[in-house]
């Protein structure tokens, strides 16, 4: 679009009438460029998931046959999905992911709502520093911390345990969720809490009766974020979990369905799609919250 309009010669032509006409033409071209770009982008963006779906519906024999296009499925079968769903190990991954995610989301939300309220509305010695600290913490990647955490988690005897993951995942979720919540709480007008204070409400009541209900969209956005991050976490489980019965889905699919030397691509793709399903479903239904949470930091500034 930028290049199209920049190249359009009409813009430099003099004459008001012509200019209006050329503007309309320019708009039409812009629209066409926009749709063409979006179609191309959508094809590129959706091709890998589509190909994963296609592969997951094929039999091993069809996958192994290099003749013909790999992009269509000739004899669709659900056997890969059935094999996974009926496999207690795979169901175990699912339950582990659910347990870990539920625990982490609860812990995260309690920590960050309390902290955000305290940082946005109350204050104490060093609270400004702490707010900056939250921001900086969010910038520290998990790949910097996993080696010392490996030693620490090992020292606590929590290697190969989902509770070890529940312990360390908050490093991924708490800073950003606190960050989102501070923004939402800060946008609530001061008059509201002054009124509440005059009515004799204490701080806890103010939080539960006023702030949480008013900032509910923010809480949903933060919850979705915490959910997505703990569902997709990869570095920590790769480093801390090696026993199949304690693995969450992401690492379970990557490490257990990839057999070193002989493995079933159909099942692998089916497993990856099944594992990706919960975030996609949440996203499909709550897309607006999702995006609101994502952009909250940026647009508020």
């Amino acid at each position: 679009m930028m290049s199209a309009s920049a190249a359009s010669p009409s813009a430099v032509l003099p004459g008001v009438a012509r200019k209006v006409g050329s503007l309309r033409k320019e708009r039409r071209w812009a629209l066409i460029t926009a749709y063409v770009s979006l179609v191309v982008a959508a094809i590129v963006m959706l091709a890998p998931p589509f190909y994963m779906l296609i592969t997951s519906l094929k039999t091993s024999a069809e996958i192994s046959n290099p003749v013909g296009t790999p992009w269509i499925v000739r004899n669709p079968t659900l056997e890969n999905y059935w094999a996974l769903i009926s496999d207690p190990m795979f169901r175990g991954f699912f339950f582990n992911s659910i347990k870990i995610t539920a625990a982490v989301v609860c812990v995260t939300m309690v920590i960050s709502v309390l902290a955000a309220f305290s940082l946005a509305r109350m204050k104490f010695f060093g609270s400004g520093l702490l707010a900056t600290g939250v921001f900086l913490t969010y910038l520290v990647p998990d790949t910097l911390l996993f080696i010392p955490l490996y030693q620490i988690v090992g020292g606590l005897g929590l290697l190969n345990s989902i509770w070890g993951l529940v312990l360390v995942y908050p490093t991924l979720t708490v800073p950003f969720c606190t960050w989102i919540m501070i923004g939402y709480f800060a946008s609530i007008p001061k008059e509201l809490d002054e009124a509440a204070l005059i009515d004799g409400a204490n701080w806890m009541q103010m939080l539960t009766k006023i702030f949480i209900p008013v900032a509910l969209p923010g809480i949903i956005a933060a919850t979705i974020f915490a959910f997505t991050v703990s569902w997709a976490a990869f570095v920590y489980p790769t480093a801390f979990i090696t026993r199949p019965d304690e693995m969450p889905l992401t690492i379970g699919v990557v490490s257990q369905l990839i057999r070193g030397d002989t493995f079933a691509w159909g099942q692998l793709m089916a497993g990856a799609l099944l594992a990706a399903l919960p975030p996609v479903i949440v996203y499909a239904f709550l897309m607006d919250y999702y995006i609101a949470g994502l952009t909250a930091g940026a647009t508020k500034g």
Partner: protein
Amino acid sequence: MAGNRLSRRTMLRSGAGVVAAGTLGAPMVHAQGTGGSLRFAFWDHWVPGGNDALKKLAADWGEKNRVNVSLDFINTTGNQLQLTAAAQAQSGNGHDGISLTPWDVGAYADRLEPVDDVIQRLEAKYGQINPVAKFLAVHGGKWRGIPATSGTQNKPACVRFDLMQEHAGIDVRAMWPASGERGPGADTWTWDTFLKAAEACQKAGFPFGLPMGQFSDAVDWVGALFLSYGAQITNAKGEPTIKGNEKLKQAIDYGVRLSKFLPNDVWAWDDASNNRALISGKSALVFNPPSAWAVAKRDNIAVAEKCWTVPMPAGPAGRFLAYLPFTTGIWSFGKNKAAAKAMLEFFSQRESAEFTTNTSGGYDIPPFATMSDFKIWETQNPPVGTIANYPLKPHHQAKTSIAFDPAPPELASQMYIQALNTKVIARVAQGGETIDQAMGWLEREINNMRRG
């Protein structure tokens, strides 16, 4: 529990029962516990159903000896098994015993229970244990683990005999028949012949599928290639023996020349890529255990029918066969070490080993040369005898080998994981360095590993 040792006769009976029963047993056996409980971590077998053998054996043994046995199977994908062993060795708690990859026995020798008594009895019965397995398991004069059958594999050549005949003019079935003798031309099966065949097949559009990346298939076959040129990278103390090492230079040079006739992306192949190359029908030869053939049999029978396993080619220093042995170690911090030993001894009996090998479709290689005559290797088909030459047999006139032999285990395991032997070839063939530059890099890399 040591006194609980099973007599030869009960052993035979249970072995026979095992073979007859066949199918999988529950991994957990609740017997009236007088013998306590045992928990083992074994390598998660790549052959579908391959774990069932150990499950069944453990169940039978546990029932007979009133021990609650539970087994975990841990994959080597992403080095999980190695990581589990490392974590348990460090924390001093975990399973009673665990499958160890080749060099890990030495790395954790001081935390492993000596098993010399078991080995003595086994060797008295079945003869010497494979020398490579022994080299890896014996530290400080003591056996620190029992060489395992399950998971232990050779990596001979799995050849598409039709393509080899058509394009390279070599009849591998005549050269290495299933009958256990050398056929005509077996003496010419050298790396030089191999190179010519590789070129011919590549020209015909069926390049050999030899991985050159960082996974064990690649490291193992290149390790065997180096040894067959007499090329050692370090001595037994771990000091690099690279400068002016003409044999090493020759081996690297050969690897570089050979790689010209391989697919251009072998540098990134993993353990499965060579299998896929074979199964897709695009490749005339891979170095692999029979799993590649077995999956072809399932998914692309037309390819499987044309496969024939033959020994690796010979070099100036002899014929070496890439060998990846697993060793089962018993942690010295375990609570039930006597029972653990007794169970592993039972697993090592000929009947148990044969059952294990049968369950894996002939994939598993027992550590005793006297057990290279299991029927399954003769009978597997199509075509009948296709993996007859998979175990090392006397007429191959070959030795098993492990990459980076004879380095000390701690260094060797790092070199193995970092795949220094394939990388040194890749630096020349793909990176455009001279052999001397690449060897200089190799020496510096090893010195860096030894520092600190």
